[in-house]
């Protein structure tokens, strides 16, 4: 299955070689998407995740065609 991967803000800068798409067979969790897409297997604790524009926990599953995003704590407003 194909998963689209996005990094934002400081994570985008820290993962210059992060993949924008990964291929996988079988079910992956969000944290496993991080492991496949980055060169730093252990996802830092303060990284936030979303799947298809909704916040998700690292242990939740990802489906074919999903967009998974990783970003630091938000600082808007």
């Amino acid at each position, binding site marked *: 299955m194909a998963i689209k991967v*996005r990094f*934002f*803000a*400081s994570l985008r800068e820290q993962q210059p070689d992060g993949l924008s798409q990964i291929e996988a067979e079988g079910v992956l969790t969000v944290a496993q998407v991080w492991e496949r897409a980055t060169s730093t297997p252990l996802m830092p604790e303060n990284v936030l995740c*979303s799947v298809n*524009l909704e916040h998700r926990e690292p242990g939740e599953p990802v489906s074919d065609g999903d967009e998974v*995003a990783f*970003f*630091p*704590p*938000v*600082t*808007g*407003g």
Partner: protein
Amino acid sequence: MAVQLHDESFDPARLLAEFETSLPVGSFGATASFVGTMRNHNEGDSVTAMTLEHYPGMTEKQLEEVIQDARQQWNIIDALIVHRVGDILPGQPIVLTAVCSAHRAAAFDACRFLMEALKSRATFWKKETLANGESRWVEKNTPG
């Protein structure tokens, strides 16, 4: 329009006036609003510029959800959230929230809720440029 993202500087006074003008004359008694403005200093350092990154699609959706949450908690007539994205300078507005209601308590409460909710939930990230030329990501928001 309930949610607006602007990639150039916006005029809060004009947008607030447009927001009120869009409602029937005499229908509302209370308008509470808040404008967040970029300061020229933060955490003891002089700041000369800032870049606001967001997650297109997700951010707008979150802001609309924040307004829906406010509508469920308070009896409000209309609400507005405007947020800057992109490169921004000290003195320029970052965010505008506004709520119209019949009576003032709902307007005050809901307007403040919009700000607290968007600061804690909406996918925006600030990167500051300091006077010495260095830049840094803002790590967390100040509590409300």
